[in-house]
């Protein structure tokens, strides 16, 4: 009477065990961030904000169209998180911004300001495993940006220097990405170059909706809004000028792990950089962020429109 009936019960046990082993097998083969570049695949990474994911998508689609084996590893985190990964080759390609790459990751003491100076410094100081390819003319810089209302009330225009905020800074809250608090071109840089001491710093997000909302509703009076953020145009924000180059030139530039490069990859990425301008970048950002078009369709259309592989 106590003889176990193995048929149905055993079947169910086997089913669960099978499910488990399938899962474990898949687990072994799933995307391990430390594998990839060793067997001829390139790993394209991106930072955790939409524009960077879009640029990485453009690189990825173009390279795949040229027959390169590509693994996407987007949204890794901020530079401070993904930089160690690309240094050791776990990631092969990242769309970078030469100025902040230099001042944040490579040489915080650098005073290089223009594109030429920044790239020269990078070529000299990047670790031996890394190099930069050609820069595009597209610029996406950090900034000090205020609302139209604030600008009018304080007689500021986009030609006014950041320094013009000095008399008001002590009653202003400044908002930006969390890392702005500790970066050399962040709060410290604004103080050093323009004598600004804000009342406080509010860590928000990477020039995303939280930063935009905080600026709009007055939680912060000025913010680091990246210059190709579509809302600068749609909400009529005013970006102040940076004559002292607190923020070095920030051209979109591919950062690559040398050992993973082939002539095809280099040629393709350089071709992309040649066609990317600030206006183009703003346009595709708007498509993705404001119109909510998908990253891959915007990337493919842009490549097609410029006669690039897609």
């Amino acid at each position, binding site marked *: 009477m106590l003889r176990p009936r193995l048929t*149905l019960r055993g079947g169910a046990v086997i089913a669960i065990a099978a499910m488990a082993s399938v899962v474990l097998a898949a687990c072994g083969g799933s*995307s*391990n*961030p430390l594998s990839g570049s060793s067997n001829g695949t390139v790993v394209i990474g991106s930072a955790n904000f*939409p524009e960077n994911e879009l640029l990485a998508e453009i690189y990825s689609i173009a390279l795949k169209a040229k027959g390169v084996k590509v693994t996407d590893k987007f949204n890794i985190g901020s530079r401070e998180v993904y930089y160690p990964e690309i240094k050791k080759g776990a990631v092969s390609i990242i769309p970078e911004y030469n100025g902040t790459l230099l001042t944040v990751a490579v040489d915080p003491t650098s005073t290089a300001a223009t594109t030429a100076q920044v790239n020269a410094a990078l070529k000299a100081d990047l670790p031996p495993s890394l190099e930069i390819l050609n820069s595009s003319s597209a610029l996406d810089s950090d900034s000090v940006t205020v609302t139209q209302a604030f600008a009018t009330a304080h007689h500021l225009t986009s030609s006014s220097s950041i320094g013009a905020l000095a008399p008001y800074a002590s009653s202003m809250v400044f908002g930006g990405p969390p890392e702005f608090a500790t970066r050399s071109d962040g709060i410290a840089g604004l103080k050093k170059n323009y004598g600004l001491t804000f009342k406080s710093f509010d860590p928000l997000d990477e020039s995303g909706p939280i930063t935009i909302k905080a600026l709009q509703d007055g939680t912060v009076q000025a913010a680091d809004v990246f210059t190709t953020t579509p809302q600068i145009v749609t909400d009529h924000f005013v970006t102040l000028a940076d004559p002292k180059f607190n923020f070095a030139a920030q051209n979109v530039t591919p950062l690559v792990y040398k050992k993973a490069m082939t002539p095809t990859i280099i040629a393709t990425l350089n071709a992309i950089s040649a066609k990317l301008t600030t206006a183009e970048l703003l346009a595709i950002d708007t498509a993705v962020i404001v119109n909510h078009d*998908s990253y*891959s369709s915007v990337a493919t259309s842009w490549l097609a429109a410029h006669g690039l592989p897609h």
Partner: protein
Amino acid sequence: MQWSWIPQNWSIIWPYTLDNLLLGLVPPLLGLVIAVPVGIACVARRWLYPPVLSLTSALYALPSLALFVVLIAYTGLGNLTVIIPLTLFSLCVLIPNVVDGLRSVAEPVRQAATAMGFTQLRRLVQVELPLAVPVVIAGLRVAVVSSISLASLGQLIGVSSLGYFFIDGLQRDFPTEIYVGLGLTIILALVCDLILVTARTLLTPWARGRRVAPSPLTPGPPVVVR
């Protein structure tokens, strides 16, 4: 809510869903593999259970994001950093359930098995564990549903999951994406829950034919949230 977005973007939605499913199923299964022997030991040696229970209680109180972050120092930014803490959480639920399940086997049944000549091991495997299955599966359901939901937090440390749609939806001010992420997570959890309920029915043929739909008002182990 832009419904057309779903079919248009299915090619990216599906991989994230699978990643989340993986992160949601591996920890409870690993937890079960560990919890069964630990639970058996706790029943065999009664003094073992209170300290084990205190340990799992304390562990269960810890916010998962904090645990993910502790693991980064040891396992970097890969799947293991999410899988290990979620396995620990699953253990916290499963060990008490294995113990309760084994303890719920009525003494007369155990004695009858011994009287029939079952060795201790055979009694454990052929009588006590099968009878413990409903309680264990109850714990497994909690572990699976919680893991699927907590896995989305992994996106904050770059571990691929449905959490991607929350972050991207936030960055692009795009509620549709967020609804999709929420909906898929809940659907995944409920589907897995259903599969486990079915497994329980299949694994306990002796309970069929009797109305055992648990009514909250019948005396018995309450459906409590521990």
